[in-house]
């Protein structure tokens, strides 16, 4: 198995480029769904020890809506989408046409379902772009949903990877809107074995070799 510590900067750039392609497509799809312009930040590629959680959305106890997918196909892995609590109301208003009462502590089935659907569209658009770009097959599971502390969600997702590898490759992208406080954070966590597959596919596409 590939030592994640030996990922060279060229390879990180390549992964960032993959993430950009996916995120760009996902932003377009979500922008059409909710009818606002979506901004995409430059994706961040990092190799972390599974216990060192990133906390992009505030402290470990910040409540977020998490939409989680297992990814199957040529490059298996996981994707977790986190919507900040401030985003939930505006997103639901745009999708369902009605403003939820106050800050949503609990969501109705239809509200949770709407957020899962948003996740589905974002995840599928992201994966489609990746799959086309790398000429491979990538399939998401059905979404799982939870409204809870960001650290409890992320640590659970990372713990599942940790059984096989002490480190994880984390590809993060942030989506936001102008004018409305909507922030969606996307974590893509390819399995350790998927890294080689992805870099190889990129090498074939671009003619650049990543022998590191």
């Amino acid at each position, binding site marked *: 198995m590939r030592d994640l510590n030996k990922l060279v900067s060229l390879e990180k750039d390549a992964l960032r480029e993959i993430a950009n392609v996916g995120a760009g497509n996902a932003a377009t799809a979500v922008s059409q769904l909710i009818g606002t312009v979506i901004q995409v930040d430059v994706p961040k590629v990092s190799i972390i020890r*599974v*216990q*060192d*959680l990133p906390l992009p959305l505030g*402290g*470990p*106890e910040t*409540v977020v809506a*998490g939409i*989680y997918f*297992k990814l199957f196909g040529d490059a298996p892995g996981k994707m977790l989408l986190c919507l900040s609590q401030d985003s939930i109301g505006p997103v639901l208003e745009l999708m369902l046409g009605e403003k939820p009462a106050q800050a949503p*502590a*609990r969501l109705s089935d239809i509200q949770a379902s709407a957020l899962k659907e948003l996740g589905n569209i974002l995840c599928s658009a992201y994966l489609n772009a990746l799959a086309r770009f790398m000429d491979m097959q990538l399939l998401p*599971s*059905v979404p*799982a*949903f*939870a*409204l*809870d*502390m*960001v*650290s*409890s*969600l*992320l*640590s*659970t997702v*990372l*713990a*599942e990877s*940790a*059984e*096989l*590898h*002490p480190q994880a490759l984390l590809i993060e992208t942030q989506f936001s809107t102008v004018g409305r406080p909507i922030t969606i954070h996307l974590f893509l966590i390819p399995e350790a074995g998927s890294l080689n597959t992805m870099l190889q596919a990129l090498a074939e596409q671009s003619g650049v070799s990543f022998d590191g």
Partner: protein
Amino acid sequence: MAESMCAKPPDKLACFGIGSCVCLALYDPGAKVAGLAHSMLPTIAAALVPPGGMGPADQAKYADSAVGFLVASMEKLGASRGRITAKLVGGAAMFSFAGPRTEGAESLGERNLRAARESLAAHGLALQAEESGGSAGRSIEFDPADGSLLVRSALADPRWL
């Protein structure tokens, strides 16, 4: 995460955002020494054991090795093994996928809890209380002055354990 800490009054211990992980809270009321370990996984896979053996971080990371390691750390602060009692928090299943669950499959949280309970029993430590399972994340605050443990979650009222 994957860490352990010990403390005596007036210091306090805390752990935030526990999902499928288990938090092991040990307390010696005689010496007023408290110990907390936050484990991510039930047991180390043979392939992941480092050549030089498991370091402190690795031992806390796995629920089965965390118990012995935490007891030894507490003994250095004056705790006595015979007086130590245990509380267990965490082991939730944060995400559930629609559709029938695979027959007999245990969630990671359940496996973490089982490993922690078995290891406590193997070390002869009494499990005094447990706030575990379910589908909600938890945070805890642990006070070495009286061994009280406060469990908080995002949507439910705080609870003393």
